[in-house]
C-alpha cells in the first residue's frame, strides 16, 4: 500500500523536471492506528467498571434474642476451614440428619450437594419459595475471604433464597481441627 519513491532522477545531464506531487496522502496507516486505539479505549472503559455482589446481613440487635425455629431437614450448614476445605451437614450439629462430610469448592463439590438438597427439599415441601433450603454459612478464623465469596457465589448460582452467615461454634471448630482443616 505504502509507496516508496525509489530511483528518482537517474539520468545525467537531463532536464530538471518539476515533479508533480501527489496531493493525496496515504491515510491507511493512520486509520489503522486510530481504529486500534478506538478498540482499546472501548474495551477498557467497559471492563474497568468493577463488579460487585450484594450482601445483606440480619439486623444486629442485642436485645432481640428470639431464634427462629428451622426444620432440621431444611437447614444445611457449611463449615469452612483453612486451605480451601469445607464440611457440610444437614440438620443440627448434635444430631445431624446427614453427618458432616468433606467436599470441595466448585461445580463438582458443594454445588452438587446443594442442588441435590434443593431437589430433596422440593420433593417434601413443594414449590413454595418460603420453604426452600436454608443454608447457614460458617466461616472459621482461618478461612480466606476468597472462600466466603466462593460460597456466596454458589448461593447465587444455585439460587438459594435463604442463607445467612453465622458464627462458628466451639465444637464445630473442634471437628474441623480433628479433620485437619483448622
Amino acid at each position: 500500500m505504502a509507496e516508496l519513491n525509489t530511483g528518482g532522477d537517474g539520468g545525467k545531464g537531463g532536464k530538471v523536471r518539476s515533479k508533480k506531487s501527489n496531493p493525496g496522502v496515504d491515510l491507511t496507516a493512520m486509520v489503522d492506528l486510530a481504529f486500534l486505539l478506538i478498540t482499546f479505549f472501548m474495551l477498557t472503559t467497559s471492563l474497568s467498571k468493577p463488579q460487585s455482589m450484594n450482601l445483606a446481613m440480619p439486623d444486629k440487635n442485642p436485645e432481640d434474642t428470639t431464634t427462629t425455629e428451622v426444620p432440621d431437614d431444611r437447614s444445611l450448614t457449611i463449615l469452612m476451614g483453612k486451605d480451601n476445605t469445607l464440611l457440610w451437614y444437614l440438620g443440627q450439629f448434635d444430631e445431624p440428619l446427614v453427618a458432616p462430610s468433606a467436599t470441595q469448592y466448585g461445580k463438582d463439590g458443594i454445588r452438587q450437594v446443594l442442588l441435590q438438597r434443593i431437589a430433596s427439599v422440593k420433593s417434601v415441601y413443594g414449590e413454595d419459595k418460603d420453604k426452600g433450603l436454608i443454608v447457614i454459612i460458617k466461616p472459621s478464623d482461618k478461612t480466606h475471604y476468597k472462600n466466603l465469596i466462593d460460597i456466596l457465589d454458589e448461593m447465587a448460582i444455585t439460587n438459594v433464597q435463604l442463607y445467612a452467615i453465622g458464627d462458628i461454634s466451639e465444637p464445630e471448630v473442634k471437628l474441623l481441627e480433628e479433620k485437619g482443616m483448622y
Partner: protein
Amino acid sequence: MAKVKVSKKSTRIDMTAMCDVSFLLLTFFILTATAKMPDPHPVDAPASTVQTKLPEDNLATITVGDNEVFFNVLGREVRRKTLERISEKYNVPFTEEEYTSFSLMEGFGVPVNQLKGLLAMEPAKRNEPGYQKGIPFDTINDQLSDWIKFSREASREFLNEEINSGKKDVKYVDLDIAIKGDADEDYTTIKRVIDILQDQKKNRFFLVTGLRDEDF
C-alpha cells in the same frame, strides 16, 4: 470495428472521511474514559459470577488487604464535610489547603494523627509503599467506625443541601458501602469490618469482586 476499452479503475480509496470519523470516535472515548486512580494499597479482589455494578456516586469503599484497612469516599464535597467532622471529634484543626488536598485524595490509610503529614506530601509520593499503614479499626481505637459514621452524615448533609437548592433529580439515599477485600485476606479481618458496619445498622453493602464464569 469499435474497440472495447477496458477502463482502468484506481484501486485506491479516499480515506479522509474514514480517518475523520475514527479520530472523532477516538477523541470521544479518550475523553469519556475515567482514568484509573492509583490505590494506596492494591488488592486482588476474588472473582464471582454475580454481575451487579457498583454505584457510581454516593459510595464509600473500604479496602482490606494484609490486615490493613483503607478508606475512600466519592465526591469532593462529601470528603470535605467528613474531614470537618473528624477534625471536630479528634480536636485536630486543618487548614484550608489541607481540606482542599484531602478532598482531592483518592483513598488513604493512616491514623488521624498522621493525616496532616500525609496531606503535606506530594500526591505522587503518598502511594509509595511504607507510608500508609492502614486506619486503626480494633475495638480500642476504632477510627474506621468514625470515618464511616461521619461520611454517612456528610453524604446526608450534602444530599439535603442539593435537594434544598432545588435540584429535582436528586433523591435521598443512604451512603452505599463497598468492601474490597483481598482474596487471601483472613475472614477475621473482613468479619471485623462487617461488624463495624452492622453496629451502625448498615446491614446492606457491596462486596467488590472480579468476574468469572460458572465453570470453576
